[in-house]
């Protein structure tokens, strides 16, 4: 059986990264000019990597699915970015950030990766400030911080409720500078449709020009995937409309392992689903839980009266409210990690205490407005309150917000080793696209940290250890048979889709996929439901390939075709998620199996059997994939049951 080699450096935890950097191979400046790197994606990870690699002297080809690299979905991150600066003098340290992240991930992440992430976190803040990112500041002129879930310190840096936007625009400005200097060639409105492997190494990609519909070939010495996560499998999620898992899926089909597909995050504070026409869900930042208090009515009759429109939340007095997070988790209160908060909301709603249409709980700012004044609350969360009011037509300064959990982030993704290289040499994956740092649950404000850590401070080093051996390799021709073959394969797939000419729109099939996933592979899973889902997905796949309808032509701008290509992959990703969920007979982080819970209803991990990363290896069309295990041997910390109660 294949052994998984994660290439974790030897030595004490805190010295691994320093030692790695001291001994890794480097590429000298003259040779860097001779090497080309493809970076797919322009979010925090992709843009920061493309900019940094170009600054170092490599030639970068950067691909962007939108009309501009400034629009990648990192831009929608609201709350903040973590770093172990300890500017607040509240006892933070690199070790504590490392520990909180490992614990928050329910002990399913690699120690060495997470420690490295905590180590480089401080450099990210320095870098962003130097770029002109306008972080929030105190009157003394120094940087302000706030708290996020799963931490007892204030280590989150923020720029109002638009932190992701400001960080992305920082990376975008660095990237734009390199485009202007002709060190990065930018391909906008392109979508990667396959990775090309030559003699066992990643040597290029096939991309579809979304304006002309033409398939184009691109060669390079290395390929970096920074295409984000796959939770749009569920149709409704907080991800952008074009966010998809196809690039990762193509890598998987060319032999890259797909790790922990079952581990997706359901974010507790999103605006509830409104109707069947709903196209996506809107997140309300976790930062709101700093000051907002989550509750449902204590009495079922009150909840029923609210649902019937006979009672308003403001008419329910203090004693009749159940602040269930504060009740169940006194030590962390409303700031428990996301998986815990999401399940607690589902538990209350399933028990009949939900408000709105039944699938919602309150997030209440009345106490904060009394304590701090409306002005302070507005300064902290004004744009979020405005966003809520525009969507729901309710004023959150006067009546509590209604929220419910929604799909948000994928912790799972392409398997990478310590160098962020996949199991295909020369193919790297960074940011949300890889699986590496968040274990079974990501803490708030850690996605921005990981994306920028990978792009600015990790990949630009580790990729050199690979490229140092490639300096003698001349540029490739895209006429090689491997490119021919890959393009031919895609063309056949596209032609097949166009020829089906069935009766159902792509969206109607995607919504069906979403329902199957949400009902059976969502917040609470069980063996029976998962088996049923696998069965239903098989049927859906058949329905898709025999009854989808795509108007227009293949060689043209064709939005329906774009969506169909992505949906074909989403269905298969859904299947793998279901298999992985079934296989992992334990509960951990975002993966909750109803059969495995403590008497209090908390996730029950089974460390003796499941302390591993499940790495799925593709075996071919209609063949069951093989699961390889990367053991997670904890050398430095002791696993405990996560406790946010005391």
């Amino acid at each position, binding site marked *: 059986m294949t052994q998984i080699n994660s290439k974790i450096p030897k030595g004490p935890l805190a010295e691994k990264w320093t030692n790695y950097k001291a001994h890794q191979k480097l590429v000298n400046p003259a040779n860097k000019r001779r090497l080309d790197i493809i970076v797919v994606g322009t979010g925090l990870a992709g843009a920061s990597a493309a*900019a*940094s690699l170009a*600054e170092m002297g490599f030639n970068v080809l950067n691909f962007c699915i*939108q*009309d*501009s*690299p*400034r*629009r990648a*979905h990192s*831009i*929608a991150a609201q709350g903040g970015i973590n770093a172990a600066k300890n*500017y607040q003098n509240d006892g933070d340290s690199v070790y504590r950030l490392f520990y909180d992240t490992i614990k928050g991930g329910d002990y399913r992440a690699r120690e060495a990766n997470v420690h490295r992430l905590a180590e480089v976190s401080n450099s990210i*803040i*320095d870098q962003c*400030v*130097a*770029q*002109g990112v*306008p*972080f*929030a*500041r*105190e*009157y*003394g*002129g120094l*940087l302000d911080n706030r708290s996020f879930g799963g931490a007892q310190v204030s280590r989150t840096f923020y*720029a109002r409720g*638009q932190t992701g*936007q*400001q960080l992305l*625009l920082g990376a975008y400005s*660095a990237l*734009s*500078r390199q485009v*202007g200097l002709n060190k990065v060639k930018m391909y*906008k409105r392109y979508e990667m449709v396959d990775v090309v492997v030559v003699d066992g190494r990643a040597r290029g990609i096939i991309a579809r020009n979304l304006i002309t519909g033409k398939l184009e070939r691109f060669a390079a010495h290395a390929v970096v995937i920074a295409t984000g996560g796959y939770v749009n499998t569920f149709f409704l999620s907080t991800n*952008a*409309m*074009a966010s998809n898992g196809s690039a990762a899926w193509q890598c998987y089909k060319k032999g890259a392992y797909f790790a922990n597909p079952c581990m997706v995050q359901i974010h507790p504070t999103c605006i509830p689903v*409104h*109707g069947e*026409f*709903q*196209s996506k869900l*809107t997140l309300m930042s976790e930062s709101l839980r700093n000051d907002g208090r989550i509750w449902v009515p204590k009495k079922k009759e009150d909840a029923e009266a609210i649902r019937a429109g006979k009672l308003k939340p403001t008419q329910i007095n203090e004693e009749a409210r159940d602040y269930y997070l504060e009740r169940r988790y006194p030590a962390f209160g409303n700031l428990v990690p996301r998986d815990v908060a999401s399940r607690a909301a589902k538990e209350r709603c399933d028990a009949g205490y939900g408000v709105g249409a039944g699938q919602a709980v309150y997030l209440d700012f009345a106490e904060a407005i009394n304590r701090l004044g409306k002005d302070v609350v507005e300064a902290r969360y004004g744009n979020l309150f405005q*966003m809520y009011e*525009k*969507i729901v*037509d309710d004023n959150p300064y006067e009546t509590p917000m209604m929220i419910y959990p929604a799909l948000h982030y994928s912790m799972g993704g392409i398997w990478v080793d310590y160098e962020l290289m996949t199991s295909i040499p020369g193919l790297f994956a960074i940011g949300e696209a890889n699986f590496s740092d968040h274990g079974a649950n990501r803490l708030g404000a850690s996605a921005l940290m990981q994306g920028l850590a990978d792009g*600015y*401070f990790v990949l*630009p080093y580790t990729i050199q250890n690979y490229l140092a051996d490639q300096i003698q390799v001349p540029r490739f021709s895209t006429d090689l048979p491997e490119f021919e073959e890959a393009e031919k394969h895609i063309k056949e797939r596209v032609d097949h889709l166009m020829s089906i000419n069935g009766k159902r*729109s792509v*969206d109607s099939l995607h919504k069906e996929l979403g329902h199957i996933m949400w009902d059976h592979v969502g917040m609470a899973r069980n063996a029976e439901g998962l088996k049923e889902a696998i069965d239903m997905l098989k049927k859906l796949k058949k329905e898709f390939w025999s009854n989808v*309808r795509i*108007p227009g032509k293949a060689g043209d*701008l064709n939005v*329906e075709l774009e969506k169909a290509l992505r949906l074909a992959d989403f269905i298969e990703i859904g299947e793998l998620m279901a298999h992985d969920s079934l296989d992992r007979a334990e509960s951990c982080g975002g993966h909750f199996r109803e059969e495995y819970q403590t008497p209090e209803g908390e996730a029950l991990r089974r460390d003796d059997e499941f302390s591993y990363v499940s790495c799925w290896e593709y075996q071919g069309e209609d063949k069951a994939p093989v699961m390889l295990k990367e053991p997670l041997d904890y050398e430095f910390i002791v696993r405990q049951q996560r406790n946010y109660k005391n």
Partner: protein
Amino acid sequence: MDKNINITLKVWRQKGPKEKGAFETYQLKDISQGSSFLEMLDILNEQLVNDGKDPVVFDHDCREGICGMCSLYIDGHPHGPDSSITTCQLHMRKFNDGATITVEPWRSAGFPVVRDLMVDRYAYDKIIQAGGFVSVNTGGVPDANAIPIPKKDADLAMDAAACIGCGACAAACKNGSAMLFVSAKVSQLALLPQGRAEAARRAKAMVAKMDELGFGNCTNTRACEAECPKDVSISNIARLNREFVKAKLQD
């Protein structure tokens, strides 16, 4: 309370940048006022696909008002009749039963139509590439708290940095000027000590690029400010003018 409405849509359809476009009229029934404007277009497209027709092409992505991708000119206003929002945040409760709604792409010399309601805004990227950055490489920068920045300046910089690059400012301007967009970036970086060092060079380079790309001049009509989904103020244009004049005087 939200109810269902019937509407008539007049949508601009255009095959390509060089081809002639025209309005097409569509009827939609039972649209929930709780749906967003783009969800209403999704319903229209579902209907067109089911009828075997080409769906309407329009740009959109995050659907929460931050990516700047959506770009519709609705009833004569960029991003429609509501204020301080993008098209994706516009909801159907802003329209009455029986309404006729006109939907067009951005119309501006700087933004050629790609198809239907989709335009090419690469010009904005080119302006940023000309100087909308601080020239620092990754690594080797001072500690983030090494230079205190007065809160007032940081807040003003953030107000300017809120720009999402959607292009509504140029689309709203009768001169097709990109001054609000350019001034937002120039202001943000000029207000911060990190961006001060190359403030003069930046202002000149970005203005020169804007002129070169065919955007018009600013005549202070304030249409940009009125239509900006992020409420970016035209005081930024005044700041840009100051920076520009200062830079020219130093030449």
